[in-house]
């Protein structure tokens, strides 16, 4: 395992990047279908929920400061259920990343390059991600920090 260290700022910036793109491109449409003109209420209700999940993650980290989520779920739920939960989490990561990549491809094809095959665009993005992952956690952290000013300027 890579033993890179990142700062709190880097982690928060990385999370911001991960959430905001999906949040801006896809959530408004989905929520609008359900809520229509009352869409402005939804963030107010979503906010405490989000806060709660962050609080839970924080408390768990305080309880098991040196362990990963896989390790402490085995502590809490026992070996078998812990491993099952770990598997579910891995599958969740896998599916959510697939969804993100699909969203990205869909967005680019529909907005910029309508005649380019989607697998080329997605493939290029995945190659780029592989390049970043090859550098390790520290590199991704620094990359997020570097891009953040431009990113936040545009949104």
């Amino acid at each position, binding site marked *: 395992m890579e033993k890179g260290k*990142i*700062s709190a*700022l*880097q982690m928060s910036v990385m999370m911001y990047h991960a959430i905001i793109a999906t949040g801006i491109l896809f959530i408004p449409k989905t929520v609008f279908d359900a809520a229509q003109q009352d869409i402005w209420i939804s963030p107010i209700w979503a906010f405490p929920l989000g806060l709660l999940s962050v609080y839970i993650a924080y408390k768990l980290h305080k309880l098991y400061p040196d362990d990963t989520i896989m390790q402490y779920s085995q502590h809490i739920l026992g070996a078998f259920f812990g491993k099952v939960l770990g598997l579910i989490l891995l599958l969740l990561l896998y599916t959510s990343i697939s969804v993100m990549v699909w969203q990205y491809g869909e967005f*680019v094809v529909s907005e*910029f*390059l309508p005649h*380019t095959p989607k697998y080329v*665009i997605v493939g*290029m*993005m995945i190659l*780029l991600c592989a*390049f*970043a992952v090859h*550098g*390790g956690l*520290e*590199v991704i*952290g*620094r*990359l*997020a*920090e*570097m*891009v953040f000013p431009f990113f936040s300027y545009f949104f």
Partner: protein
Amino acid sequence: MFNRKKFTFNKQNKGQQVDKEVLKPLYSNLEKNLEVLNFLYKDCSDVVFRSFVIAGHIKAQLIYIKGMSNIEEIDNNVLTPLMQQTDQNSINPISLIEHRLSVAEITKIESFDTCVEQLSVGNPILLLEDNRQGYALGLAKWEKRAIEEPSGELVVRGPREGFTESVEVNTSLLRRKIKSPQLKMKTLKVGSYTQTTIMITYIQDLSDETLIEEITQRIKRIDIDGILESGYIEELIQDNSYSPFPQVLVTERPDTAVSNLLEGRVVIVVDGTPFVLVAPTTFYSLFQSGEDYYHHFIISTATRWLRFLFLFISLLLPSLYVAVITYHQEMVPTTLLLTMVDSREAIPFPALVEALLMEITFEGLREAGLRLPKQVGAAVSIVGALVIGQAAVAAGLVSDPMVMVVALTGIASFTIPRYNIAIPFRLLRFPIMLLAGTFGLLGIMMGLLAIIIHLSTLRSFGVPYLSPMAPMKRRDLKDTLIRAPLWKLNTRPHLTGEYNKYRQSSNQKPFPNKNEEE
């Protein structure tokens, strides 16, 4: 393969005999010593052996290399006092040398290898009969270039002196600026044939001990036959040798070297070149010119922004043009688009081919301009102006906007104060152009991200290349994108100057004395 074997074969046979002789201590017999030295310097017609007699009975031998020693001083201060000694009885040759020779620097020699070392530096050697010691006289003097203004790093305001090829002159330039004895210089010899002097210079208590140790280790590990320029050292000690980005700062200016020393960095001076190395360095410091600190801070800040703007232009402008023309025509204002279409109508090539053609031509002209003999320079610049300019348009090969783009790009890459950081960007322009030609703006984004990812993986002697932006050190931002006023630059950079954090006392903002009027 064959060649390599032959080389080691040679080295093992003939080389070994020389090595054995060199490691021995001097004999007490003068004849025997001379025999060894004659063997070592066989067929070296530039080595002069001069035998003479002191006070009529002590045989002595003076050895020096032609053109590397001060012959006048040898005559006046060594040969004359020794040969004119007439008192025959109570003469002790050792006290004679210590008391009669008016030479400032006399080193005692006990073995043949120091003998060879001193000779090759230019110091004449004096050997005496029945004496196991020789004497190296510090009378080296050879032709060197005078101190001139560095042609690669010109400034409007700032010192006009630059480093020269001689390591002694270079270290003296540093010492003249830093008078404190805390300025330390460690000497290493690298290169099995050239024995090039390399000085590791740092300020004690400002530089990290482990950093100095690391640099020393990396240089000591080098086993090469010759060091001809500091570029050899740079390539052999940098962290990531496959990266096109320079991980060591190269400068010709003593003031830049000193300001880096004061920030806790280490300066490596190599004999035989005016370019000294500064390690570790960061991406942003490669965009700083020494002049930034001599002008008013608002002006320096604006200049830095201008440099970054033109960095992006030199990297991206042709690609942006290609992408917009090929894929995103809707981004251009309509009237401009009409003119562009009008000028592009007669052009047979796609924008990408047009851009590549012109950029490669420009790079070729630039390279030719560097290597040209001065006499033909004017001819090439006229032809170049025609090729890039009106003639290319008139011939229907390129469009008018493309000429402008190429010209702007060419100028932009020369606003970057350091040549070695401008080169990788000039090179990376081409892959990004290809990406822009195939994927439009998306391709440019991909290329930019790949460059930033690569930059974030780099480290220069343990210091992240993109610091202090990533990882973010807010304290150090005062001297990256902006140049804060000098009275605000209270702390040294985080990763190199942590050992002696404060460089000046705070609250030094000048203020007029308000009580003066009373």
